[in-house]
């Protein structure tokens, strides 16, 4: 298989993982990747506004973006490991175990403006049962995050190759 074909297969696996959730589509979250690192984009839409007088993105939606980014990075890391190991089922999205959120602490740093929002997660520790993840969301300027979060996630007992 050529490198281009392999890249296309992995991009398709990422789409299958991240676009099957109705809620992701509802708030307009999609993902791009640089290798194994994901970046989430929440496309601006009027229904994401919480307070219309400022106007600002709803804090709940910003929190949702952070949680989704953490969950998808954890699930993608698992798929990535399996794809690297040549597990054909990983490409087809079979036996993809989803982590479950145990807790999430969100710090709101700036009010979210009515425009696109981006987020990236860092897995601080991926343990056998629990993962600790940090996430940041920003708009135009990466160095001026609008929100940050850290959370604990229960890892699935998905079969490993």
């Amino acid at each position: 298989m050529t490198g281009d074909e392999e890249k296309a297969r992995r991009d398709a696996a990422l789409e299958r993982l991240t676009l099957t959730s109705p809620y992701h589509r509802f708030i307009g979250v999609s993902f791009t990747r640089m290798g194994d690192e994901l970046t989430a984009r929440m496309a601006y839409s009027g229904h994401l506004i919480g307070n219309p007088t400022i106007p600002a993105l709803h804090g709940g939606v910003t929190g949702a973006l952070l949680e989704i980014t953490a969950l998808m990075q954890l699930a993608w890391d698992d798929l990535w490991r399996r794809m690297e190991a040549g597990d054909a089922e990983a490409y087809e999205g079979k036996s993809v175990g989803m982590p479950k959120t145990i807790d999430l602490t969100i710090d709101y740093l700036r009010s979210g403006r009515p425009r696109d929002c981006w987020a990236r997660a860092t897995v601080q520790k991926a343990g056998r049962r629990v993962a600790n993840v940090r996430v940041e969301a920003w708009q135009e300027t990466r160095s001026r995050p609008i929100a940050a979060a850290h959370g604990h996630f229960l890892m699935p007992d998905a079969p490993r190759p």
Partner: protein
Amino acid sequence: MASEIEPEKPGRRLEQALAAFPHAQAIGMTLEPQPDGRLLVGAPYDERLIGDPATGVIHGGVVTTLLDTGCGVAAGLKLKGKAWVATLDLRIDYMRPSKPGHAIKARCECYRLTRSVAFCRGVAFDDDEADPVATAAGAFMITNTGWKE
């Protein structure tokens, strides 16, 4: 999350406030102030809000949205509509997934107001309030600009 509520006519003002909050509208959120000062918020089961289509469970982000709104508006009620609040932080603990097909509710309260900060907490559940889906604790900054002149 900010709120503008006139304490004299909480029901009508709440409806008006809600009508002006696009995302609350988008998920069909309801707000019911309770006689004890707490606030009951809710969202009906909606297929657009499902996290995992394999289970039909509503996404945790909706629970976060309910708890953030409920806590912020509870603070606004306690401030009698004289100030806005903005979420500083919010911690959500998830106990279990919500039941597919059931509405999610959250009972929220502002348990302490200082000059600058409102301290709030909330419990999200579906059928049985004693069997919570999630709990939240948050600090909200009180802004000095009230909604009235």
